[in-house]
């Protein structure tokens, strides 16, 4: 299995580039005020939030323990409603299945609701290479598609762009429409609505993702604010749902519990504008809806995680909340991670699905501050899994000699308390002496990556341990 356009090996260079990109830094600065403050409000208005998290975790753990049974139940319920379930072992098989459905439908244009799995398997490029035009319809996805880029946030794909960049894209691509000023936000929205409405009406196949699959009823569920996922599935002749196998939940009751967490964690809404349950093709007498309904269940490495140390990552409901909370994501943005899944969840999921060989930087792209786990509605122990992946990488022997030797030296010192105390006291004393005059260092040998962007405060003369032993307490 592979992840499409995986460029995680370039993380250090991409991160440095992102940090120096002033436009990106200013665009990313909007994250916190918006998502996190609204989330805090939404949590405060539901006293049961934490209890619901516990229940949701239990539901998902139960599902993962019986994943085979629930997938089979889902499959037969879909069939009972007149739909068809397809199974894809990996990305290539998923692409072949979707292309086959499109060809059978004689499709020349496909509209798409937002789907992360589509990014994971590289569906758009594949369809385009087969002569089928794929049009993203979520506004953020549409913007990044026009720019020839990948989404940089799970729920806000174009967070890295500002209004000026959007208006430039629209003016270039909307040849039939008049140019818009960057500050004419209503006009930009109206243009996207007009252009994409035409696309919806002309499309032969509509492809959406799924936030949940319900085993009891065979329904697939999407959650959107724009309504694009609905026009994508209601207007074309064929509706294809792409979903990871971990998306299944037992019942409508269980999905209702998850829904109380999803929008609150994602955007701080109590419910997103549209939550849509789809159970098959058009029925007798129906005036609208697709004539055919396909669900493609994608494994692509997920089943292998079930018995492993990163199993809990399969609980993820893709709310994007850990990205908003992460100090690293907030500075480097989504593209630096080089994967369809950025941020803390991506730093676990990407190596888990694709292996560590090309992705070993990602588990290190974290200060292990723990905010991701704190905000995660599914209580996924992301820091623990990042540590596990670091350990695995260290044991693989792939790390450069300098890193291995450095860590070896460190562990030799750290495992000998008396030596450690003596060396740290010595270092603290010497640095205190040297930095006495200014109280800080703006450059230090061996610490350039620290002092290159900020000063190092000089120690006050005694180490923490010696002060502790002398009876000082904070």
């Amino acid at each position: 299995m592979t992840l499409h356009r995986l460029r995680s090996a370039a993380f250090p260079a991409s991160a440095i580039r992102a940090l120096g990109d002033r436009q990106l830094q200013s665009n990313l600065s909007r994250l916190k005020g918006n998502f996190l403050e609204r989330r805090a409000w939404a949590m405060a208005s539901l006293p049961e939030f934490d209890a619901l998290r516990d229940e949701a975790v239990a539901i998902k753990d139960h599902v993962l323990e019986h994943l085979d049974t629930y997938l089979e139940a889902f499959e037969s319920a879909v069939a009972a409603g007149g739909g068809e379930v397809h199974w894809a072992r990996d990305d290539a098989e998923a692409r072949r299945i979707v292309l086959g459905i499109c060809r059978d439908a004689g499709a020349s244009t496909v509209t798409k609701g937002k789907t992360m799995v589509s990014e994971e398997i590289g569906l758009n490029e594949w369809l385009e290479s087969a002569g089928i035009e794929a049009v993203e319809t979520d506004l953020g996805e549409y913007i990044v598609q026009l720019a020839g880029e990948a989404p940089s946030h799970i729920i806000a794909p174009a967070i890295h762009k500002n209004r000026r960049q959007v208006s430039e894209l629209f003016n270039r691509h909307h040849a039939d429409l008049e140019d818009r000023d960057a500050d004419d936000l209503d006009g930009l929205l109206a243009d996207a609505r007009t252009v994409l409405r035409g696309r919806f009406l002309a499309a032969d196949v509509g492809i959406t993702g799924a936030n949940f699959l319900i085993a009891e009823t065979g329904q697939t569920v999407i959650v959107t604010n724009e309504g694009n996922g609905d026009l994508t599935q209601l207007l074309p002749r064929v509706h294809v749902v792409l979903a990871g196998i971990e998306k299944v939940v037992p019942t409508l009751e269980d999905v209702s519990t998850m829904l109380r967490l999803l929008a609150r964690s994602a955007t701080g809404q109590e419910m997103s504008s549209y939550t849509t349950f789809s159970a098959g093709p058009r029925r007798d007498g129906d005036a609208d809806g697709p004539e055919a309904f396909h669900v493609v269940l994608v494994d692509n490495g997920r089943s292998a995680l079930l018995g492993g140390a990163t199993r809990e990552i399969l609980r993820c409901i893709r709310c994007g909340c850990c990205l908003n909370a992460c100090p690293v994501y907030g500075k480097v943005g989504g593209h630096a991670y080089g994967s369809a899944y950025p941020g803390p969840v991506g730093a676990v999921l990407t190596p888990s699905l694709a292996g560590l060989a090309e992705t070993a930087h990602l588990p290190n792209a974290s200060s292990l501050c723990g905010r991701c786990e704190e905000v995660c509605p599914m209580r996924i122990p992301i820091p623990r899994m990042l540590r596990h992946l670091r350990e695995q990488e260290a044991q693989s022997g792939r790390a450069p000699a300098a890193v291995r030797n450095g860590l070896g030296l460190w562990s030799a010192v750290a495992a000998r308390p008396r030596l450690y105390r003596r060396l740290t006291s010595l270092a603290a004393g010497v640095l205190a002496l040297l930095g006495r005059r200014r109280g800080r260092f703006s450059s230090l040998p061996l610490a350039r990556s620290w002092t290159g962007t900020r000063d190092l405060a000089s120690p006050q003369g005694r180490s923490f341990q010696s002060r502790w032993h002398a009876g000082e307490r904070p």
Partner: protein
Amino acid sequence: MSGAREAILGRIRRSLPAHRGADPAARLSHPRRNLQPARVALSREGLVDLFVRKTRAVGATLARVDGAADVPGEVARYLRERNLPAEVAIAPHPDLDAMDWSSGTVSARRGRPLDGDRCGVNLAVGAVAETGTLVMASGADSPATMNFLPETHVAVVREGDILATAEDVWDRLRSRARTPPRTVNMITGVSRTGDIEQIIQTGMHGPRYLHIVLVKEA
């Protein structure tokens, strides 16, 4: 692709422990409720008030009428107030058919909405007080596109159809049919996006305006 099916299920089974907990069959055949938020522990009137408050909080407008006969008049009033053409597409539902659309000032076309329709009217199958959510079920009498194509969506809701939570709506739908409707749309407010600079804008792909006509029943 039965090879893929067996391969995936086989991989799952090999990854899972031999001894597993609680039985999925029972959970599927007897769905049980999880925690219900305390905010819905209210009287009938309390639930209606909560619904009204919640819909307004998500940008919908709401008008209350005394009976079904008053619905066409309210729709005409709303369109006039908003300075919109007095033309609507109406879902071909018997309860909407039973209303007198001819005597008013609105010209009504029965059937699924077309791309040019400015305003669509349909009937909710239920509503959730907890979050101010409308529940629409697709069918011959209720095209799902009515919820999304017109720029203005007028949804008729009977007071008696306002239930506390989504779980109450599922119970009601289960009691009516063994299988779920083809499409169930839960609608909470209007179409919106924050994809340009995280600034919330309304009317992205679906309706820019949502007007709820709440019908008191005898």
